[in-house]
């Protein structure tokens, strides 16, 4: 009996070690930092880190939904720009105005996402090109709203989103909330559909899943999360910039991919994405503690990305060799 249980655990590890890579990466990085500079590993550091990483986490979560359907969303960056500019230039210092503008932004973002999904499924054009076009349009709109960096973000808005309940920041609660929602969403019909469409579009269609609705949903969610990322960035940076989102495009995809979401669709999830985003946001700190010039940080990011993907590609290969259907 005991032996059997042990075997079972070994089997689980053998089958799923790939998904543990991002966690191991983050753990190693945190341990390294703890050794190099023990004073950093405090609750305060964690709170600051979660504030700093939340925009990326939100954008990457949205991206994950699209990647799961086998798509690609470059418009995330554009939507973040538009949101950031709108929030920084239009919000007044009253709860009503803040909520209204947040709602308006959310509406715009979801609409752009839905448009993306609809066009991609309707015209069968490559997601890369369609979202590149919407990205460019969004950048233009952001520039129309705000010509230069700046803007005026209400203090109460900033304080509200960066508030700490004791040592726990709002951002951490948001992350936990998202993960709980994800646990629920994954069990629902639509959660299943998203994975199914990503795994095999044709088979999903033949099984009566509406590919159109699923894709529209995924891109719509991505747009919505991009808005959330933009809203939080506005509070965190306390200003608006028409080019704020450009940095988020590639790094949101990187975060999802490091977290184990496959570009081919149908594999991965939000948990890994959150970890992937944290890994990417911790690298810079780690390099500082290691005494490496920050000029090298993009190199390290690139190498980590390749390593993470190469290991998972190797793992998939091993599985396939053993005859598993991957």
């Amino acid at each position, binding site marked *: 009996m005991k032996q059997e249980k042990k075997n079972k655990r070994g089997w689980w590890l053998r089958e799923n070690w790939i998904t543990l890579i991002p966690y191991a990466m983050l753990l190693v990085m945190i341990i390294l930092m703890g050794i190099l500079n023990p004073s950093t590993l405090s609750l305060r550091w964690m709170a600051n880190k979660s504030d700093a990483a939340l925009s990326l986490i939100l954008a990457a979560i949205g991206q994950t939904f699209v990647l799961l359907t086998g798509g690609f969303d470059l418009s995330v960056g554009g939507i973040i720009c538009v949101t950031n500019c709108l929030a920084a230039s239009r919000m007044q210092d009253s709860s009503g105005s803040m909520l209204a503008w947040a709602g308006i932004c959310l509406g715009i973002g979801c609409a752009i996402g839905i448009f993306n999904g609809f066009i991609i499924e309707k015209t069968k054009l490559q997601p890369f090109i369609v979202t590149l076009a919407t990205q460019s349009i969004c950048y233009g709109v952001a520039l129309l709203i705000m010509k230069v960096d700046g803007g005026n973000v209400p203090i109460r808005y900033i304080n509200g989103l960066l508030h700490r309940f004791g040592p726990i920041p709002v951002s951490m609660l948001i992350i936990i909330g998202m993960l709980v929602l994800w646990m629920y969403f994954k069990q629902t019909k639509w959660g299943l559909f998203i994975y199914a469409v990503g795994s095999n579009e044709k088979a999903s269609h033949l099984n009566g899943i509406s590919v159109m609705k699923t894709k529209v949903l995924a891109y719509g969610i991505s747009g919505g999360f991009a808005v959330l990322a933009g809203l939080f960035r506005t509070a965190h940076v306390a200003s608006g910039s028409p080019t704020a989102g450009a940095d988020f495009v590639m790094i949101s995809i990187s975060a999802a991919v490091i977290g184990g979401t496959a*570009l081919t669709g149908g594999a991965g999830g939000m948990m890994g994405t959150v970890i992937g985003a944290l890994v990417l946001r911790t690298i810079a700190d780690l390099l500082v503690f290691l005494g490496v010039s920050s000029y090298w940080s993009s*190199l390290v990011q690139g190498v980590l*990305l390749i390593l993470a993907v190469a290991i998972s590609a190797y793992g998939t290969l091993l599985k396939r060799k053993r005859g598993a259907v991957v």
Partner: protein
Amino acid sequence: MTIKRFWKDNFSIFMTYMVAFLLMVFVSVLHPGYASPNNLRILSITASILGITVIGQMIVVLTGGMDLSVPWMFTIAAFLTADLTGGDNGKLIFAVPIVLGAGLLMGTFNGIGVSYVGIAPVIMTMASNIIFQGLLVGLTGGTPGGSAPKALKSFAGGSIGGFSPLFLAWIVFSVLFFILIAKSPYGRKLYAIGNSNTVALFSGINVKLVRVSAYSLCGMMAALAGILFSGRISQLYLGMGDPYQMQSVSAVAIGGVSLLGGSGSCIGAVGGVLVLVVLDGLLAAFGIAQSIQKIVYGVVLFLAVLLSSRRKAGR
């Protein structure tokens, strides 16, 4: 082959040139100075640099991949040229092959990652793009400098029979690669891989090697464009290659080359470059604000791709 069949087969290419031509006519009518020899010359130079990166990009796209690392291969090539020559014309003779070799090497790095390790092309080249960026910025401490030797500058700014030498170089390379892609066995292999990896493998094509070679060629072309571009500007700067990342992919897609691989032609890609460059010049000629420029760019990109790939979707 009847004319009807020919028309049907090359519909997307005609469409691309039509869009470029109509844009051109549209601006020339509204803005008489646009079609002046001088402006055309400037446009042709812009088109040449982009066009050379697009040739490489297209080869990769034909195999069903994508190369997002063009910008920093481009930038590294430009800085390496300046560094190796130190502004000395004589050293150009050995510097250019070295830089092209470096481009080839960087491309091969991409190719190995995609082909032998099995990383998705977008991820691999995105990662290598920031790796190259980190290499250049890290090695030079964030402040690389220098400028291209005089000979390169006079080449880029000169004139042969009224045409810019860069433009002629673009034409020559386009023709060379047109022959390579459309008429040679190597070209057939590229299409075969893009259409179906498995079928290509069973047909006895060394799929992995051919795929690597596509990325290598792309790296070399990006490096070549970088060398030529360094002659165009007085002072090199970081990030000078950045526009070419999305533009090269857009041009390829506008030119009717399927991003899924296996279909499209060099002539179409050239048309895609023309559309982008004419559009860029149009927006500049009218003095349109950057914001509107980006919106128009997005809309035209979408419509052009829709037009040029309509046939394929319908089939």
